[in-house]
């Protein structure tokens, strides 16, 4: 069947446009390869891979992921000892970098590239080609309209051609008819869309490869520098080198949270966080700046985000002679919305024994009925630090890195709090207390705040954004610009009258085609000044 559509080979195999005979591949080696390639780049495969990708993304939302929730993973493994090892084998805890997930999207993108390249070539050809011959019979096409008139067929065709051109159609006159096509932009948009998807994937990959992210806790009055040693944790991309770290420093002058005080439904809910910092670029003057949630600081090619905050009580410990053996802030991990926080203090040297402490900091301490404390407000209205103490082996000497936020109690003996016989030590700022066994004394010197900063360097960020914008632009163009063909035929009848026929053909979804053909017929006949009638 020679339908007007069959001229279009730019579509992938299996594309629904027109009936098409299935070609049998020659089954030698090259034939197999070609067959495989055609299958991979067919519409059906693209669809299958897309749906498979959607399904493959699900497990990662059901099970905590190492990348976004490492503690959740540990917890999950502890709670589900039966299934966790299997999930681990299947890389479900790292779904989005797993072999199977990567395989699906890489295949999809290979298919995409294999699809886009030939289509782009065909599209270039189509852009230079003439609109196809007018079909012999227009009656069966969309929006078919017949008008009769008096006059000369050749003139009518030329008038139609000029009108169509004015409406943005590419035209070609074939004998007593004109063939016109417009909306090549639809296919252009489609190709831009699909190509931009590749662009997004590639630039995201580049950004991840050459960028880095790092986290660092900074206490009021202290500073961090953008050097490898300065980070608490650091995740370099695959191609990261130290040279990517631009040296600068950020000092936290003050951290000012604002809590809701009026609305009783939301008492203590934070409404604003502001970190006032002083930044210094290498060789530059110190500059004041602020970092807020949703308003990162841009410095030295990095973005600095304010991710968390809490209290970092400064504890001063003295030996029996009054010499200071420890005096520094300890960032305490917030446990609830009112910032009840857990503090771990380790004093390996200076006292008669190694001392470890587990502290509970309450910014606004309030006693419960049973005497235990809670925090009832996140600001420091009634700050109390309550401490348990342990002596023994802190486990710091074996050379292995230890978690600063955890205390291993295996080789320790409790000397303060719980069943030790000595009640927990409770300190308010400025309070001092003696340590048991004549170990020395402890003082809560002050309670500054800390912020945790997230520092990101992503050299491809703007490119990702650019391609994302192209994705949207291409999508809108390809979905809403109609691609259509219109034909006008004029036939001279024996009695000297003129039979005019109009029809269109939609390429893809085109709800307005009928109306467009009818409107064109009206305008054309108007222009000819001919009488209108069937």
């Amino acid at each position, binding site marked *: 069947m020679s339908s007007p559509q069959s001229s279009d080979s730019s579509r992938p195999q299996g594309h629904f446009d027109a009936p098409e005979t299935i070609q049998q591949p020659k089954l030698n080696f090259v034939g197999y390869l070609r067959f495989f390639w055609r299958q991979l780049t067919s519409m059906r495969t693209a669809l299958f891979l897309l749906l498979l990708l959607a399904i493959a993304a699900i497990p990662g939302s059901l099970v905590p992921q190492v990348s976004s929730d490492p503690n959740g993973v540990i917890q999950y493994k502890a709670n589900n000892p039966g299934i966790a090892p299997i999930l681990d084998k299947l890389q479900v805890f790292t779904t989005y970098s797993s072999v199977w997930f990567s395989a699906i999207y890489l295949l999809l993108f290979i298919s995409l590239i294999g699809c886009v390249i030939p289509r782009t070539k065909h599209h270039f050809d189509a852009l230079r080609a003439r609109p196809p011959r007018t079909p012999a019979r227009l009656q069966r096409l969309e929006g078919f309209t017949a008008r009769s008139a008096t006059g000369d067929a050749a003139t009518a065709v030329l008038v139609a051609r000029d009108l169509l051109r004015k409406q943005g159609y590419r035209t070609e006159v074939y004998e007593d008819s004109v063939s016109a096509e417009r909306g090549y932009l639809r296919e252009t948009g489609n190709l831009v869309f699909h190509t931009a998807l590749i662009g997004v994937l590639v630039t995201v990959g580049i950004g991840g490869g050459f960028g880095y992210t790092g986290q660092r806790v900074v206490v009021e009055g202290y500073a961090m520098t953008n050097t490898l040693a300065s980070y608490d944790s650091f995740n370099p991309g695959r191609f990261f080198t130290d040279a990517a770290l631009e040296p600068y420093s950020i000092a936290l002058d003050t951290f000012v949270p604002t809590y809701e005080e009026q609305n009783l439904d939301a008492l203590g809910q934070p409404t*604003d966080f502001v970190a006032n910092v002083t930044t210094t670029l290498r060789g530059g003057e110190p500059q004041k700046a602020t970092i807020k949630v949703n308003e990162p600081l841009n410095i030295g090619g990095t973005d600095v985000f304010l991710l968390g905050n809490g209290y970092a009580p400064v504890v001063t410990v003295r030996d029996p002679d009054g010499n200071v053996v420890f005096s520094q802030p300890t960032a305490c991990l917030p446990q609830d919305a009112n910032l009840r926080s857990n503090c771990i203090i380790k004093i390996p040297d200076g006292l008669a024994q190694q001392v470890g402490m587990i502290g509970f900091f309450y910014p606004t301490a309030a006693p419960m009925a049973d005497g235990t404390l809670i925090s009832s407000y996140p600001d420091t209205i009634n700050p109390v630090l309550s401490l348990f103490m342990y002596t023994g082996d802190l486990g710091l000497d074996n050379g292995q890195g230890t978690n600063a936020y955890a205390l291993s109690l295996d080789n320790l003996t409790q000397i303060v709090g719980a069943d030790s016989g000595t009640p927990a030590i409770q300190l308010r700022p400025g309070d001092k207390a003696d340590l048991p066994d004549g170990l020395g004394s402890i003082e809560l010197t002050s309670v500054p705040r800390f912020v945790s900063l997230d520092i990101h360097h992503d050299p491809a960020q703007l490119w990702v954004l650019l391609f994302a914008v192209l994705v*949207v632009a291409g999508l809108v163009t390809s979905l809403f610009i109609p691609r259509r063909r219109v034909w006008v035929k004029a036939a001279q009848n024996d009695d000297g009258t003129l039979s005019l026929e109009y029809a269109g053909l939609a390429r893809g979804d085109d709800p307005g085609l009928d109306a467009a053909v009818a409107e064109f017929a009206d305008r054309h006949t108007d222009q000819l000044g001919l009488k209108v009638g069937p």
Partner: protein
Amino acid sequence: MTDTLVQFSTVAVYSAMAIYALAFIMFTLDLSRRVAVVAAPAAAEIAAASANGYTTVLEKDAPAEPKAKTPRYLRAAMALTVIAWVLHVGAAVFRGVAAGRVPWANMFEFTLTATAIIIGVFLAVQFWQDLRFIGAFVTGFVLIALGVATVNFYVDVVPLPPSLQSAWLVIHVFVASLGTGFFALGAALSVVQLLQARRAAGKAARLRFLDTLPAADKLENMAYRMIVVGFVFWTFTLIAGAIWANRAWGRYWGWDTKEVWTFIIWTIFAGYIHARATRGWRGSRSAWLAIIGFTAVVFNFTIVNLFFKGLHAYSGL
């Protein structure tokens, strides 16, 4: 002041729900009444149209709707829907004024506003496409959503936490709601399309009201047009969300549960668009994809928000 406004808002929501319920009843009555009106030729026409399948775009749409004037129930249903919608929008506006910000910062408010947008889209679309026959589906869906929101999601007005204080909240969430509205209409049309296809195949003989509705291939085209618009909004939502995430959390994409599901939905609908263009996937299969896609949207908003752990902890519950 705030309390009064919140009370206005609550009263308006409940009134809107009552009127939506009436509208739903009217829409349903209309569907059941259509059986009586339907003329024999219309059924024959549909059978003829669907016997041809969807193999060609050249087929003229059979004018399936009887040329009679708008049935009384349908007119009443539309009028009620408009009244309920005005109250509904009023409820959202009062809530927003009471809170001093956009009324979509927690699940209650988001449901309130998103359902208003769904109805708004439904009403607006009528200007260029008569979709009143899915009125029962749309008002029924919105009624259930509002019921769940007022009973299970309700929270008092509280200030925005710092992470939500962003212009992107306004854009991202609003556009997501618009997309949801179009997806909802697309899903509704796809449901009717499936029924219609079954009926054409000689099943669903008892659903005689289907004879008065457009044929399956026409419904498929309508659904496609809705979903394509929804898809553009959803794509934008995805990108706007990434930009916002980059400002709030320092990365544009982190496979957070909510991000995962937004991505899954996007992929399903991209699949839908491909399915429509793939031989063997037109018709009922692509209709199922549209329905699965919308189910995923609802799932993303309810189950994922409430039970999945992630950074998007904005349910307010």
